[in-house]
């Protein structure tokens, strides 16, 4: 479990392993870390294999021909890649439209959240108004309300607004963000006050101070909000399942589940090709924005 047992307490002692109780104690100290190290690396290797294995299997199976995709033994490494499944998935479902829908929904939600959370976070962090703490608590309280509880009234509201079965039905309700507002407030609170004071001395009003001084400084915080929103809504399944009806408004996860339902176990590699394609943006975020995503995900826990 602990690392330090490896490096302390054993340095001076290199003597024999038999003898007095005192030396036997040292013997135990010497042997235990070695066994612990082997055990630790084994456990880590197994955990890494179990985590990556399913993803590698999905990738290599998507690169088998549809007819042999369910043959055993399975393949974990894409030797002799075959791209038939990738051509086939474009024939089975309108991949282009699904990607476009997902990109539109996710992109507009991310932009909307970045804008609204920046404004609200700034107001809570750096502007003075009556009832600030009460309003902020109210905003935070909405994080406690699961989406499943509000989905029925939201569905009816969307119908009443004449937006049912449109992409806007997915976008609009997702823009107000308690977590994003919380993050941006923290971010603005972390920025020094001196800039505002200097700008005020130069005669800048509250708007100018916000626009020209603090917005440029808050870009990293906005990136966290944007990446979190992108990751969450690109993968979202529950709301699209309820709020979209016709296939032309489906997002990627919904399209893929429908594809699996249609194809069943007929040609696994076609479905998996779709799954791999849908993972690509997440992979890009993972490679280029992992640090930002990690910071954002763990930010809520360290209030």
């Amino acid at each position, binding site marked *: 479990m602990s690392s330090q047992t490896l490096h302390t307490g054993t340095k001076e002692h290199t003597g024999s392993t038999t003898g007095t109780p005192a030396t036997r104690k040292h013997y135990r100290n010497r042997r235990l870390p070695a066994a612990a190290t082997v055990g630790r690396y084994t456990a880590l290797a197994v955990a890494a294999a179990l985590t990556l294995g399913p993803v590698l299997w999905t990738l290599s199976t998507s690169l088998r021909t549809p007819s042999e995709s369910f043959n055993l033994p399975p393949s974990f490494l894409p030797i002799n890649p075959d791209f038939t499944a990738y051509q086939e998935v474009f024939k089975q479902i309108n991949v282009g439209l699904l990607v476009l829908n997902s990109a539109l929904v996710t992109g507009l939600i991310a932009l909307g959240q970045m804008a609204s959370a920046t404004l609200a976070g700034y107001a809570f962090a750096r502007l*003075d108004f009556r009832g600030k703490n009460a309003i902020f608590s109210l905003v935070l309280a909405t994080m406690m309300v699961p989406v499943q509880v509000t989905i029925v009234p939201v569905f009816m509201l969307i119908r009443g607004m004449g937006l049912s079965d449109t992409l806007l039905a997915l976008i609009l309700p997702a823009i107000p963000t308690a977590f994003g507002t919380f993050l941006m407030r923290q971010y603005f609170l972390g920025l020094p006050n001196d800039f505002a004071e200097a700008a005020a001395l130069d005669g800048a009003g509250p708007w100018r101070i916000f626009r020209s001084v603090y917005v440029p400084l808050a870009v990293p915080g906005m990136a966290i909000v944007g990446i979190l929103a992108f990751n969450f809504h690109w993968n979202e399944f529950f709301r699209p399942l309820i709020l979209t009806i016709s296939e032309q408004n489906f997002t990627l996860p919904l399209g893929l589940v429908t594809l699996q339902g249609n194809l069943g176990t007929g040609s696994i590699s076609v479905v998996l090709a779709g799954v791999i394609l849908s993972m690509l943006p997440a992979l890009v975020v993972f490679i280029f924005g992992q640090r930002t995503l990690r910071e954002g995900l763990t930010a809520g826990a360290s209030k």
Partner: protein
Amino acid sequence: MTTTSTGPRHTFKPPAARRSFVERWLAMIFLAPTLLGMALFTFLPIIGSLVLAFFRWDIISAPQFVGFANFASLAQDPTVRVSFLNTIVFVVVAVILQLGIALSLASMLQARMPSWLRVFLRSTFFFPLVLSAASVSIFMRYMFNEQFGVVNWLLSLVGIPAVPWLTSPAASAAVVVLVYVWQNFGFSFLLFLGALTNIPKELHEAANLDGATGWKQFSNVTLPLISPTVLVASVMAIISALQVFDQPYVLTNGGPGDSTRTAVMVIFESAFQQLEFGEASAIGLVLTVLILAVTALQFRLSRRFVFYQ
């Protein structure tokens, strides 16, 4: 930011009263998108849910007041009752597994190792978090297929006969837990990793000098130090597990029978398949109360058991 000025050159600042007037208006404009959006898409729906829970409504005919009948049916309807029980069992098992795996892996990563290896392992355990639960459930459903799935093929290598993963009640419940934990342990892992990395090295060294090593050091030194994180991670894991939907919906669609049906699946089905919007709202409210209770418990426990530095 407010009217407290530090410099001597008061003359360059607009009058304090005017400033705070402008600020108040600016604050209102800045808050408008978020607050109006929340009023429309969160607060109004909550009130709607509270009202709807006392009505029977199928959208087509006029709503009909039924008092507490929707809540009573929660206790009587076997599907609803089983689904809540399933959800609670799921939460207990999945959260314990998720936290146990995450904490073990995060502690193992504290050992001395090449930094590329640590970065690789951290990225690996984090990776499932960026995937969609629906996609993960799609490929896991193939992997757990009884005839040609990889899992049964691997088991056959060590002589274990094929397990009907998705067609037997107990095994399919286990699959839902495994798939969920596979995707979500990385989140708790990140929280624990952060907390463990923040422990000052001297504390471990002091513990070593006192002869507290291994498990003893972990339970007496490390665990108390990260107890605030353990609490937060547990509560976040419980809240998100209570809302499980994507995995059972795609993997088993609640079956076989009702064995993997969860509370949120019942909300979805009674609202959008049976058009029982009142009943769905009632179930949703009960779920919210559960979530609020867990959160309240967090505050209680944090005062009693958690060690803050």
